[in-house]
């Protein structure tokens, strides 16, 4: 601000114009419009540590269940591998031998009861044709011609032959004079006497006389036979009696207690029942107190020799489902054959005397009362039973010694040579088998061996000495160390790719009494163990590791102009380690192989070892790699890196690996990068 002046002042317009001019000169003289900023680009070196890590053998192998550290303080690494053996399940061996049994059931007691075989009334004038009708005093009188009664049985049979049988006769006197009946005879159509009864009794008026039965044994009755007898009367004893035709002699006869050899006629339905017990264990020595069947069936075949059909029902009294005997029925035609099968799955079995299967056959013949048929006593029903493919879910009793063939046991993959290829000569090794018998029955090893194979065709075995595994026990079988070393080294320069056990086990070798279930099994493992101490090492491990590079990082890697990576590798392993990395794309194609600046292999010499093969001191070497921008660009496309780590140890000195042995890798890089990397 300027001070006021009282002198003449220039016009205001002049002052303002001048002001604008000076203002412009002040503010804008020498000024040009600034250019918009454009960030420059440059290259800069980044010196960064890439990796600083110590890999001990323990760290490297921590996740490998194959290795453990020895417990004797040496920190020696020990390879321990377990190979589970295929379990031997009892269910495959709790079985019953197939059994076939037969029986023939005859109708030896065809019953043919005819209670009204004969029922006749003979009036007094038929008995004594000479007597007049009306009131009279009857004197002694006799029918000289005798009496003959026709017996028509065509309603029941045409002919019947008795092995045994009774004809029971009764006389009822409805005549007012006593009657004497004698010379009772059974006559055929020719009048010949077939049977007779020596009975001579006086039957008083109004009385009933029951005669002794007439034996029909061996007789053949036909439908047109006659009953004949002689009859007389001592008269009315002076008394007048009134005779009329209503007065008669009643004659009844019945066939009883028949045992019929054959019958041709109208045979009613016959019901027959047979209870049988069949030995189903035979001579195997198996005894079954109680068992639950896992699977199996009993098949019945019925051959019917009758001229009538029959319904046959079988009930297994020794086998039940839910407490009820297993039963089923079938129909068999006349002179026919039929078969049925009873499923025994889940059936509970209780054998009589631990050996016999009890069953009941119920035969009901067809009713033949409408058509005459010939039935003979010798006719039979033949039954054949077949017990097949019976396996038990459980059983108590005695299982006979059972051979278990374990030749089909699966081989376990040794799985070592898949990750390590090369040559290792072992100086110590152990193999043992740990077997566990989960059954209450003992198991015997009669002939078995550990078998090793590899794909090249090599094979070797270790014999297992005979021994028994007590019921529900574990056993460890150690193999002699020299044999084991020879066994494993015999596969060199490779390894067995599979190990297993094969041979013959015997279940319940002494036939001891006990119980067993299908779920019981014999299981086991094979163990191979050897210290990581080699007289010769020439192996390699090849592994492919995925490279997890995100898109941002891939983009940034393209901003790297060139770089040098240096690795200080401190080797505390008793082996020379050679690294051969290859960077691969998604298709597995090799994008590039890093090479050291001096062109030498990426290799670190073995650390010096003492007489025992243990590392005395570490050895450090420096490896330098140079990457061009093009190689970084290719690295950016890599999705995986394949490492081949080769180990070589002095053959003469040998090498022993401790868990504390290590490889320390300290890597650092000088990367020349573009400043544009920060924009990505």
């Amino acid at each position, binding site marked *: *601000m*300027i001070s006021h002046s009282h002198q003449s002042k220039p016009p205001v317009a002049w002052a303002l114009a001048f002001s604008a001019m*000076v203002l412009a000169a*002040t503010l804008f003289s*020498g000024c040009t419009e600034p250019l918009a900023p454009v960030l420059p*680009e440059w290259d800069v070196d*980044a010196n960064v540590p*890439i990796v600083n*890590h110590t890999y001990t053998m323990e760290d490297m192998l921590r996740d490998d269940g194959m290795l453990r550290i020895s417990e004797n303080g040496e920190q020696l690494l020990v390879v321990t591998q377990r190979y589970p053996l295929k379990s031997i399940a009892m269910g495959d061996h709790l079985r019953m031998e197939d059994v076939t049994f037969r029986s023939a059931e005859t109708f030896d007691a065809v019953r043919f009861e005819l209670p009204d075989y004969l029922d006749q009334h003979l009036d007094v004038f038929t008995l004594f044709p000479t007597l007049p009708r009306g009131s009279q005093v009857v004197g002694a009188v006799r029918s000289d011609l005798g009496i003959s009664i026709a017996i028509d049985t065509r309603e029941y049979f045409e002919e019947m032959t008795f092995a045994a049988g009774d004809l029971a006769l009764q006389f009822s006197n409805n005549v007012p004079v006593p009657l004497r009946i004698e010379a009772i005879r059974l006559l055929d159509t020719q009048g010949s006497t077939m049977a007779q009864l020596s009975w001579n009794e006086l039957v008083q008026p109004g009385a009933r006389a029951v005669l002794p039965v007439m034996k029909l044994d061996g007789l053949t009755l036909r439908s047109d036979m006659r009953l004949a007898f002689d009859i007389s009367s001592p008269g009315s004893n002076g008394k007048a009696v009134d005779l009329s035709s209503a007065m008669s002699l009643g004659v009844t006869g019945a066939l009883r207690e028949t045992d019929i050899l054959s019958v041709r006629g109208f045979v009613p339905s016959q019901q027959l029942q047979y209870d049988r017990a069949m030995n189903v264990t035979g001579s195997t020595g198996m005894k079954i107190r109680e068992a639950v069947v896992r699977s199996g069936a009993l098949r019945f075949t019925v051959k019917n020799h009758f001229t009538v059909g029959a319904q046959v029902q079988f009930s297994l009294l020794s086998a039940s489902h839910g407490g009820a005997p297993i039963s089923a029925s079938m129909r068999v035609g006349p002179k026919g054959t039929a078969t049925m099968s009873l499923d025994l799955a889940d059936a509970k079995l209780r054998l009589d005397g631990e050996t016999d299967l009890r069953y009941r056959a119920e035969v009901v013949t067809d009713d033949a009362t409408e058509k005459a048929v010939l039935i003979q006593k010798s006719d039979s029903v033949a039954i054949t039973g077949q017990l097949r493919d019976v396996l038990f879910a459980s059983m108590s009793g005695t299982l006979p010694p059972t051979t278990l063939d374990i030749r089909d046991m699966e081989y376990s993959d040794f799985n070592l040579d898949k990750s390590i290829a090369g040559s290792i000569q072992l100086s110590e090794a152990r193999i043992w088998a740990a077997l566990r018998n989960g059954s209450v029955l003992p198991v015997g090893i009669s002939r078995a061996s550990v078998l090793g194979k590899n794909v090249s065709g090599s094979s070797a075995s270790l014999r297992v000495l005979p021994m028994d595994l007590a019921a529900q026990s574990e056993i460890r079988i150690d193999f002699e160390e020299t044999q084991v070393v020879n066994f494993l080294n015999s596969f060199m320069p490779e390894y067995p790719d599979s190990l297993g056990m094969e041979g013959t086990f015997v279940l319940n070798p002494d036939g001891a009494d006990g119980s067993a279930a299908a779920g019981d099994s014999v299981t086991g493992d094979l163990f191979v163990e050897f210290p990581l101490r080699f007289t010769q090492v020439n192996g390699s491990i090849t592994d492919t590791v995925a490279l997890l590079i995100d898109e941002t990082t891939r983009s940034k890697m393209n901003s790297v102009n060139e770089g040098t990576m240096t690795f200080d590798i401190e080797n505390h392993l008793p082996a020379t380690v050679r690294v051969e990395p290859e960077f691969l794309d998604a298709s597995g194609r090799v994008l590039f192989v890093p090479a050291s600046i001096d062109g030498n292999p990426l290799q670190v010499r073995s650390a010096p070892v003492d007489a025992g093969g243990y590392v005395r001191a570490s050895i450090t070497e420096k490896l330098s790699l140079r990457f061009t921008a093009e190689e970084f660009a290719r690295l950016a496309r890599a999705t995986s890196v394949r490492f081949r780590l080769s180990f070589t140890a002095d053959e003469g000195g040998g090498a022993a690996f401790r868990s504390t042995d290590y490889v320390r890798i300290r890597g650092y890089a000088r990367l020349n990068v573009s400043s544009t990397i920060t924009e990505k």
Partner: protein
Amino acid sequence: MTDTRSHSRNFIAVLLPLLLMATVLPAQTIGTSARLTGMGNSSAALVRGLDALNVNPSQIVPNDGVTISVGVLPFGAQAGADFMDYATYNRYFTGTSAEKGARVPTYLDTQDKRAILGTFQGEVGHFSHDIRYALVNVMLSTKFLTVAVGITERTGSNVALPRSFADFMFFGNEPGKTFDFSETAVSSSWTRDYSLTVAQEFRLNRRIPLLVGASLKLVHGYAYFGIDRFNSSFVTDPETYEVRGTADMIARYAGTGDWIGKNNTFHYTLFPTPVGSGLGIDLGANVQLTRMFSAGFSLVDLGSITWDRGAREISANEDFIIDNLSSTEQTEEIRSRLDGKEYDIPSFSTPLPSAMILSGVLSLPDMPRRGKSWHFTFAYRQGFNDVSGNSSRPRIGIGTEIELLYNVAFRLGANFGGVQPLVLGAGVGFIADNFKLDIGTMDITPHLTNSFSAVAVGVSSHWDI
């Protein structure tokens, strides 16, 4: 490598805006008087009336018979850096011409990088900016008392940037070299003063005029960001490239939700919600020692502001070692440590840009003509802190004003210290009836050459009755 990128990003994020502000901002001053600006801030004892607000409250007493004075949007702004001049910016940071007038990034070779680093005059580069404008300025003068009220808005920042940042960004982490960022400092704020100033003239021994005045300010704060401590450094082992360092940092900030909230687009409002408040006092005196010489003394902006709304603190205090960048666990842990922890705090206080100003003016009467004086001015400013708009480095200004033309005064000044060791200012003042207009620049370099790294202009006017 990740850390390298991170530092590079951070560096670029900080440096670029500073460079842009230093070169693109159009004008500035300190205070709201362009008369001060044009004379290199030396005329603290010369200005009177509204021009003396925030400089010396005693001098609001007019000496030209004015009874009422109304300020018309006085405005001043300055921005400057002691590194990276405009020419350097134009050469390296505006791209290179390519086809069809396009500009592509300029590639920096080693010589270019060294040239840019050479613009640092020491191990630390500084940047500051200060913008002030008065929304309201009114003065009433009576024979009993002179009273002024004003509303002055101020934004400013002070940034100290170690050369190590640029060195690291351009040449990477040279093994064996320690990169120390402990000189890093940032203070920026946006405040508004509501001031009441009273002053009166007294006579010492009944003949020596003595002006005494004081201002009481209610200060509202709208935003603050400051780094209280940044004792961070690292060194790369020349053998293993292992990086060892320390990240020790405390930063605090507070801001009104009108512009600092996430996803908010800044919308200026006339009365934003303050997030801090405080009281400030200006005290001043001026004495006319002789007919030609007077001197002034003032203490300005004594007080502090307490930020108590939405106050947050970011802190980190970690030693770190990077020796395995392939370890995700390690890199994640270090990244987490370096990022620090951010949390709410109840409040924090920051001082106002307090300063002491000693000033004097020698007025040669009747020059260049009768009734006019040729003024020679001097001022010494000692800031008590380095908050935004202030500097603890003393500054000395000298200047002169002469009315060579009727009602047109020409001013020159030089200022020593501050961000620039020496700046030359110039200005002009006009009077048209009751309207007075002053225009000035504290640094004429930008108007003469491209080799400038600071600009400062002011425009002030008031209507006097």
